[in-house]
C-alpha cells in the first residue's frame, strides 16, 4: 500500500513545474537614480513606475551593507531636498527597511512638523540604535498634541528604558491624550523601572488615563514575567487582583498570579473564589486549575460543597482540565447533583478522565437518566473514554446484568468499533430479551468483520421473525464493508435454507453486496415456486448496483401474470435505467424510458420516468415529457421535466 501511494505521489510530483524566475515586482523598469529623480515630483495620481522600480531595487539590495549605505545616502539627500511630500513619504518607507543612524538627523527634523512626523516615525521606529532613542527623547519637550503622542508611542514600541522618567512625568500632565499615551508606553517598555513609574503614578490618574495606566501596569507585569522577574510581577498582580480594582484588570491579574506564582498563588486565588463577581470567581477557578499538585485538587473538591451551581459547573470543568484522577470521587458525587448542568459537567469530566472505573457508572447513568440531555451526555462520555482496560470493561459487561445497562454497553461497543465485543454480541443476539437481541444485532454492524459472516448467517437463520430484519442489516453492513468479503457463504446458506423468510433476507443481502456471482442466484429466484421468493428476487434485482438486470425486470414488467409484480419490476427497471451506463447515449436512454412510460399504468411510475428525463436531455426526452403533459395525473411533473430538458438543451 505504502509503495503504491508513493507511486501516485511521485506521479503528482512529476507534474511540478519549476516556479523559479519570478521576482517581486518584476525587473525594475528604471535605475535607482532615474527612479529617485522621478520620485521628487511624484504626487498621488501620477504614474507609479518610479515607486515600483525603487521598491523592487530596495528590497532586492537590502541584504548588501554597501548598497544599503549608498541608497541611504541618496535618500537622506532626497529628504533634505524640495521633493514632494508624497515622494518623501515613499522614501521614509524605504528607510524603515535600510535606514541606519545616519538617517536620524534628517528624520528627527521631520518629527517637528505635523505633516511629516508620522512618516519620519515610520522609519525611525524600526531603525536600530540608541541614537534613534536619544533623538526621539530630545523631541518630547519640543512637541505637543498629536505629534508628541506619536513620539511617545514610538518610544514605547522601541522599549526605551531611558524614556521612563520623562514618560512618568507626562502621565500626570494636563493633556489627557498625551498622558494616556505615556502610560501605555510605560507598559510597552515593561522594565522594572517602567513598572515602578506606573506604580507611582497610576493612582494619581483618573478616567481614561487611569484605565490606560491600569492596562499598562498589567502589561508591564506580563513583561516582567517574560524577562524572568516573576517575583516582581507577582507583587504587581497581587496588587491588581485585589477587590476594588476594575473587574477586567482583576481578571487579567489573576491569570498573572498563576503564571508568575504557581503554588504561591493558591491562597490568593482561593480568596478570589469568594468574589461576588461571577467572572472574577470563574477566573480564579480557571487559574487554579492551571496549577499542578494535589493541594489544588483538594481545594477545588472541597469548594464544591459550598459553591453555587454555576461555580460547581466551573469547578468540575477545571478539575476535568487538570486530568487528576484523584478528583474522580467528586465527579461521581456530582452525578447526583440536583442541577442538570452540574450533572452534565460531571459527565463531561468523567468522559475525559474516567478510565476503566467509569465504564459501569456511565452505562448505568445512560440507562437510568430521565433527561435526554443527561442520557446523551453519559453516552458521549462512555464513547469517548480512553485508557487501559476501557474496551475490556465494555465487553465484560455485555453478557449479563440489567438489560438496559447491557444495551448501553452494546451501543458503546458499536460507537467505539470494539471488534473484541463481537463474540459477546453474537451471543447476546440470541438473548431471551428482545431489546438486548436487537441492540446486539445493531452493534454487530460496527464491530463484526467479514470473517464473522458465517456466525451472523447462523444468527439470521435462527432469528425470530421480529429480529430477522436487524440480522439481515447486520450481515449486509459487515459484508458491504469490503470488496473482497466472501459471498459464497450467503449463496450456500440461501441454497440450503428452507425457511422462505430467511431465503428472502439472504437475497436482499446479496443485492446489497452486488457481486456478479450472485446474479444467477437472484435470477433463479424470479422463477421460484414461492411468490414470496419471487417478490424478494424482484426487489433484490431492483437494488442491484448496475443496469445488468434490466432485461430481467423488463420481462416481468411486461408479461408477468401477477400485476403487483409487474409494478414492482417496472419501478426497479426505471431505477436501473437511471444508473450510469457507459456508452449509452441520452437518446438511447430516452428510448428505454419511453418504453417504461408505455408500461406505466399508475401515476407513481410515470412520475419516476419524468423525474429521470432531465438527467438525459435530448429531443427524445423532451418529446416524452411533452406527450405526458396531456396526462392530467402527471401534467405538472411533465411540464417541469420538459422545462428542465429545454433549459439544458438551450445551454448547449
Amino acid at each position, binding site marked *: 500500500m505504502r509503495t503504491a501511494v508513493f507511486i501516485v*505521489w511521485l506521479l503528482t510530483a512529476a507534474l*511540478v513545474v519549476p516556479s523559479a524566475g519570478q521576482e517581486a515586482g518584476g525587473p525594475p523598469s528604471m535605475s535607482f537614480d532615474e527612479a529617485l529623480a522621478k520620485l521628487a515630483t511624484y504626487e498621488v495620481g501620477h504614474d507609479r513606475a518610479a515607486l515600483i522600480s525603487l521598491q523592487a531595487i530596495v528590497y532586492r539590495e537590502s541584504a548588501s551593507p554597501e548598497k544599503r549605505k549608498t541608497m541611504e545616502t541618496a535618500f537622506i539627500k532626497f529628504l533634505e531636498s524640495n521633493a514632494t511630500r508624497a515622494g518623501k513619504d515613499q522614501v521614509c*518607507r524605504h528607510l524603515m527597511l535600510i535606514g541606519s543612524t545616519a538617517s536620524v538627523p534628517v528624520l528627527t527634523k521631520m518629527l517637528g512638523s505635523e505633516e511629516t512626523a508620522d512618516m519620519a516615525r515610520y522609519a525611525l*521606529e524600526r*531603525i536600530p540604535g540608541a541614537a534613534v532613542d536619544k533623538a526621539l527623547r530630545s523631541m518630547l519637550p519640543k512637541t505637543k498634541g498629536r505629534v508628541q503622542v506619536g513620539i511617545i508611542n514610538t518610544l514605547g514600541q522601541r522599549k526605551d528604558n531611558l524614556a521612563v522618567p520623562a514618560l512618568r512625568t507626562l502621565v500626570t500632565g494636563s493633556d489627557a491624550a498625551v498622558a494616556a499615551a505615556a502610560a501605555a508606553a510605560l507598559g510597552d517598555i515593561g522594565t522594572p523601572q517602567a513598572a515602578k513609574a506606573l506604580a507611582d503614578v497610576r493612582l494619581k490618574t483618573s478616567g481614561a488615563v487611569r484605565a490606560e495606566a491600569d492596562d499598562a501596569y498589567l502589561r508591564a507585569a506580563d513583561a516582567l514575567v517574560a524577562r524572568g522577574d516573576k517575583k516582581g510581577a507577582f507583587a504587581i498582580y497581587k496588587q491588581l487582583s485585589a477587590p476594588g480594582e476594575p473587574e477586567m484588570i482583576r481578571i487579567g491579574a489573576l491569570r498573572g498570579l498563576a503564571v508568575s506564582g504557581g503554588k504561591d498563588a493558591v491562597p490568593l486565588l482561593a480568596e478570589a473564589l469568594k468574589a461576588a463577581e461571577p*467572572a472574577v470567581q470563574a477566573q480564579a477557578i480557571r487559574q487554579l486549575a492551571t496549577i499542578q499538585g494535589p493541594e489544588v485538587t483538594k481545594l477545588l473538591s472541597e469548594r464544591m460543597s459550598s459553591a453555587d451551581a454555576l461555580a460547581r459547573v466551573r469547578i468540575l470543568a477545571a478539575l476535568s482540565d487538570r486530568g487528576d484522577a484523584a478528583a474522580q470521587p467528586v465527579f461521581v458525587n456530582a452525578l447526583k447533583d440536583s442541577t442538570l448542568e452540574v450533572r452534565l459537567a460531571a459527565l463531561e469530566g468523567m468522559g475525559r478522565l474516567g478510565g476503566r472505573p467509569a465504564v459501569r457508572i456511565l452505562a448505568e447513568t445512560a440507562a437510568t437518566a430521565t433527561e435526554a440531555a443527561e442520557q446523551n451526555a453519559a453516552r458521549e462520555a462512555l464513547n469517548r473514554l480512553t485508557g487501559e482496560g476501557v474496551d475490556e470493561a465494555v465487553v465484560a459487561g455485555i453478557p449479563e446484568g440489567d438489560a438496559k445497562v447491557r444495551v448501553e454497553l452494546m451501543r458503546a461497543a458499536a460507537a467505539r468499533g470494539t471488534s473484541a465485543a463481537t463474540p459477546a454480541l453474537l451471543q447476546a443476539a440470541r438473548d431471551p430479551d428482545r431489546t438486548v437481541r436487537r441492540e446486539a444485532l445493531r452493534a454487530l454492524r460496527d464491530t463484526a468483520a467479514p470473517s464473522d459472516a458465517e456466525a451472523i448467517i447462523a444468527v439470521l437463520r435462527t432469528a425470530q421473525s421480529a429480529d430477522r430484519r436487524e440480522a439481515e442489516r447486520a450481515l449486509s453492513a459487515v459484508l458491504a464493508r469490503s470488496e473482497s468479503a466472501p459471498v459464497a457463504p450467503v449463496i450456500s446458506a440461501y441454497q440450503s435454507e428452507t425457511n422462505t423468510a430467511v431465503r428472502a433476507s439472504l437475497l436482499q443481502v446479496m443485492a446489497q453486496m452486488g457481486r456478479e456471482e450472485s446474479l444467477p442466484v437472484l435470477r433463479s429466484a424470479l422463477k421460484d415456486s414461492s411468490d414470496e421468493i419471487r417478490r424478494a428476487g424482484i426487489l433484490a434485482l431492483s437494488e442491484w448496483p448496475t443496469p445488468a438486470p434490466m432485461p430481467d425486470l423488463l420481462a416481468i414488467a411486461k408479461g408477468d401474470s401477477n400485476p403487483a409484480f409487474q409494478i414492482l419490476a417496472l419501478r426497479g427497471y426505471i431505477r436501473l435505467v437511471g444508473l450510469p451506463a457507459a456508452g449509452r447515449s441520452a437518446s438511447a436512454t430516452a428510448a428505454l424510458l419511453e418504453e417504461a412510460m408505455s408500461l406505466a399504468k399508475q401515476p407513481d411510475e410515470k412520475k419516476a420516468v419524468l423525474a429521470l428525463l432531465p438527467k438525459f436531455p435530448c429531443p427524445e426526452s423532451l418529446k416524452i415529457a411533452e406527450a405526458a403533459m396531456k396526462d392530467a395525473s402527471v401534467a405538472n411533473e411533465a411540464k417541469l421535466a420538459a422545462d428542465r430538458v429545454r433549459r439544458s438543451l438551450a445551454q448547449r
Partner: protein
Amino acid sequence: MQRRQFLGAVLGFPMIVPARALGRAGAVAPSDKIVMGMIGVGGMGSGHVRGFLQQPDVRVVAICDVRKEARDKARDMVDARYGDKGCATYNDFRELLARTDIDAVMIATPEHWHALIGIEAARRGKHMYYEKPIGVSVAEAKAIREAVKRYGVVFQLGTQQRSDRAYRHTCELILNGRIGELKTVMIGSAGGNRGPRIPEEPAQKPPEGFDYDMWLGPAPWVDYTPERVSRTWMMIHDYGLGCLSGAWGIHDVDIAQWVAGCDDTTPIETEATGLFYDDIRDVAYSWTAEHRYANGVRVIHMDLETAKKRAQQFHFGGMASVMFGTEGWIYVSRQGMRTHPERLMHEIIKPHEKKVIKSDNHRRNFLDAIRTRQQPISNIDAAAHGEMVCQQADIAMRLGRKLRWDPVKEEFVDDPEANRMLARSMRSPWRL
C-alpha cells in the same frame, strides 16, 4: 441557574451544556440573549449582521461604521428584524465598545484596523467574532493574542472552513493517520490573474458621510482617491496582504496549519517568489511560498493558477488544498472532498479517536463558546500563527531570499532587515 451569568468574561471552561440550557431551543428570554455590537458593516460585515440576526439567542443593539450610508443601512436591517428603533449607530468603535450592556462584537473592518479594535474589545471584556486576518503584521498578531489571553475573552476568527464538514473530516482523517504520515500540503488560493490595470486617480476630497481619516486610522496618510477605499483596498499592502492572506489565502493556510497539527507553531523556514501588481495595488497576485515545519511537513501555498501547474488535483475545481501522506492524499475544497484511496471519503472516525471540535456553523460555534467557555474552533492561537505564516511568505517574497524563523521567539533568524518588517509604525494617535 442564572443563565446570563455564563456570558461574563473568562474563557477556558470546556463544559457541554445542552441547547435548552444554552437558550437557543425555541424562545429565548431577553435576559438570556447575547447582546452584540457590529463594527464594520460593509460587504462582509453586513453579511455577518444578517447571520447573527438569524440566531435566536442574539440581540444586536449597535452598529459602527465610518460610512454613514453603510451604518444606517445596517441599522435599518436590525430595526426591521426586531420591529423597533433600538439599534444605535456609531462612527467611532470606541464609543460602541464603551457600552457595558454589550457582551460581544463582530469585527469586519478593513484589515489594518482589526488588531486595534480587537485589543480594545478585549480590554473591555467583549467576546469577538473577528474577520480574518488577525492583523497586518506579526507584531499585531502577537499583541491581540496577548490581549485576548490576558482578559480571557472568547475569540473566533472568521476562517469558517473549519466549520465545514468536509474540512473537519479531512482534519480528523489526517490526525488519525488515515493517509499515513502527512508530508506535504499544497494550497491553491484565490489569485493568479493580474486583471486589467487600474488607472491612476488624482487626489480628491472624501465624500460627505465618509470619515476618511478614521478609515485610514493607523495606516500611513495618503490623499483620498475613490479606488483606494473601494474593494481595491484589499490589494494594498498598507491594509493587508491581498490574496496571500485576508482576501482568501489565510483560509487555506489556516486549514494547512490545522491538519498539520501546527495550530500552536509556525514554519521554521520559508522561501517564496511572486509577481506583484504595479498600479495602486501593490501586493502579490501570483506566488509560490514554500514553508518547512519542524515536524517535517511542507506547506506549499500558491495562487490557484500556479497550483494547477504543480498538481493535477487542482484541476478538480476552484480554490482548494491537497494533503499528501505516505499512504494517500486528500483534496478538499468548499465543494467537497476527493481522496485516494476513495474509501477515505466515507471513513468513520470513532468517538475515542482524535477529534476536532464539531462545528457546522461558525457563528453558532462562537455563540456557544461564549456560553460554554469552550475554545471556539478558530481560536486565538490558530489565528495568530496562521497569519504569521502569511507574513513570513510576504516578507520572503519581497526580500527575495530564503528566511529562517524561530517559532519560539517568533522572529527571523539572523536577518535584521526581515525582522524590521515584522511591525508597522502607526499613524498618531493610534498605537498597538
